[in-house]
């Protein structure tokens, strides 16, 4: 990340800042054209914004997962469980206990962090495969707890209704463009923190652990402590994303957080190139919106089902075969730090 104030970057930054305006401008343009009888297939600014916000959530999740998978080189197959914990912590606090979003958000993050530490603890002395297995089991377990324990959510299947939108100074942030700036701020914060960590002693320790755990230990790096730190930061970001999605979706249910989501986030990190924050974000932007881009393009007879996941699978296989370091980096990324 050696960004400079080039004209291109300035335009890019402006585009990001005023994206909702652009979307609504296109909306107006399309409406104007339709009056004169020209119809474009523009699917609507609100829809585009929602795709972008959701892609933003995936970007945040991918950055969080990248800490464990990319920096410390451990395979996390159940990242979705922090997303779930964050979502339900914030959701239950807000919808059932009437807590304000600004209080629920940090609590969700703390709750996620706590489980991140707890989940990682048994595998600290073991190899990556065991970590992968434990993470997988945890995600499935949490999914089932939410699904089965009716008293927790108040309805079956984790069906949590009417999560209020956050309010500040009497303004309720419930529009898509509100959520756009909301996720933009959170994402900037997360990327900033992660970037600073990556380029600090902590980040170098993580990469040392990834490259050779025993060598790192013998160089005086407290492997358990740094791994735990990675688990905690990663889980905190997951919890944060969950809290955001809870207020964004208003009504959530257990299937929002099923195992497939973990795999999807993992694919994003891999697609962009493990160990690279920018890569994780690009991967998330592509895969997070690919499903919607393919939606109108591929109209397949219903009995064949939706081919999107088939295409995801093929992308993964081809990428691993021909470009294992992902899309974003030109060289192999084992020594990024």
């Amino acid at each position, binding site marked *: 990340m050696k960004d400079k104030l080039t004209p291109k970057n300035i335009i890019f930054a402006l585009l990001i800042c005023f994206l909702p305006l652009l979307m609504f401008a296109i909306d107006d343009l*399309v*409406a104007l054209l*339709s009056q004169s009888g020209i*119809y*474009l*297939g*523009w*699917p*609507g*600014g*609100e*829809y*585009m914004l*929602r*795709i972008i916000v*959701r892609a933003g959530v995936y970007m945040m999740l991918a950055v969080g997962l990248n800490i464990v998978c990319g920096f410390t080189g451990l395979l996390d197959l159940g990242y979705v469980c922090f997303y779930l914990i964050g979502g339900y912590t914030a959701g239950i606090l807000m919808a059932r206990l009437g807590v304000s979003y600004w209080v629920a958000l940090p609590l969700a993050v703390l709750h996620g962090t706590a489980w991140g530490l707890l989940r990682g603890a048994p595998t600290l002395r073991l190899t990556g495969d065991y970590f992968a297995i434990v993470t997988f089991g945890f995600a499935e377990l949490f999914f*089932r707890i939410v*699904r*089965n324990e*009716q008293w927790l959510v108040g*309805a*079956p*299947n984790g*069906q949590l*209704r*009417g999560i209020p939108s956050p309010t500040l100074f009497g303004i309720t942030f*419930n*529009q*898509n463009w509100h959520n756009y700036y909301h996720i933009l701020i959170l994402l900037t914060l997360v990327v900033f923190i992660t970037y600073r960590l990556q380029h600090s002693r902590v980040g170098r320790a993580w990469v040392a652990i990834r490259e050779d755990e025993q060598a790192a230990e013998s160089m005086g790096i407290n492997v358990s402590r740094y791994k735990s730190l990675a688990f905690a930061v990663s889980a905190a970001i997951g919890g944060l994303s969950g809290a955001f999605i809870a207020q964004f*979706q*208003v*009504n*959530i*249910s*257990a*299937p*929002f957080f099923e195992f497939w989501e973990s795999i999807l986030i993992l694919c994003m990190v891999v697609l962009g190139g493990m160990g690279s924050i920018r890569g994780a974000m*690009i991967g998330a932007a*592509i895969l997070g*919106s690919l499903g*919607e*881009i*393919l*939606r*109108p*393009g591929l109209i397949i007879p*219903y*009995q064949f*089902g*939706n081919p999107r996941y088939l295409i995801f699978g093929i992308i993964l296989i081809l990428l691993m075969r021909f470009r294992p370091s992902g*899309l*974003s980096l*030109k060289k192999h990324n084992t020594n990024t730090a």
Partner: protein
Amino acid sequence: MRNWLTGLLIIGLVSIFGCEQQKELKVAVAAPYTGGAAAFGEMIRRGAELKQKEINEAGGINGMKLTLLFEDDAGKGSEASLVAERIASNPQIVAVVGHFNSSCSLAGQEIYDRAGIVELSPGSTAVNVCEGSPWTFRNLYRDDFQGKFIAQYIDNVLTDLESVAVFFDNDDYGRGLRNAFVAEAERIGLNLVASEAYERDSTNFKAQLTSIKAKNPDAIFISGLFQEAGLIVKQGREAGITAQFFGADGVDSPDFLTIAESAAEGVYLTTPFTFGAAGAEAKQMAANFEAFHGVAPDTWAALTYDAVGMIAEALEKTYNPEATIADNRTAIREHLASLDTPEEGYEGVTGLTYFDINGDTVDKPAYVKIVKDGQFVAAEKQLSELK
């Protein structure tokens, strides 16, 4: 790297801008056309297509063609909220028929509410689907009615069944229905001997069936969907269970019969509609359906057929080509909300539909079907009124 992204962007833009449309009335039909509930989605699509064909052959709506847009929510809430936004932000779509799954209807509700577009569900039965938004309607009963109905049917009509067990899917549908059934069973003094859960997508029920068998109930109510129910009945008969099986509308699919095979014989189920107990209009619709699609319609096809009919009627009465899309969408809602008495109600093949203040359908009866010789037929004794 840059080439990659540019390529993707172009593909994206082409597919987004690709299809150009002409002036016509567009209604979205959102349902699970893929995923585990795809069998329901298929019948919903067919029911909607039949109504569309009939309307357009009769000259359309005030001379305008009715176009249906089939939007797939895959039966998942997260997909449904995107689909909802996609529909809501398309300024050509005037109303939505859907969603099927209650969790999808709920996921879309907030978005439809914000955008001000009617969501008329032909399949969501969870109790709270219509609460909280004036834009949500449905043309079938709620689970609490259904659960109550089954308990009373067992108690009042099949009087020799003394003890019952519930075997329920642990998702919102199965558990919601089970809660209503259990509450009513306790109220009317039905002897509830067991209540066991299973997970959606399970395929092996022998463990729970063995537990249920040990309690020796006279009747077993399966509160879940046809995929699992078919296997439960089959595996139950294999395990030597001779109790009477009951199901609810989630079991009402021809696939139940193909899964359970001969074990399906004699299973009772409730449904919002049955062709066997319906009038001449419904029989005509069934014949047309079979001629058009080559298969017999089911409950969901009929309910969707009516839902599309209701929207078409609303459009016919209220649509103003000069008005803005927001006004037209509002006019449809106002029309549906005005159907609040039996006199005002919409007379479709599934009976008379009219709404209460929430948008729930009032006084639409439940029917009981039984499987006889591998076919669903209306049960001899129906229960006309709840106590």
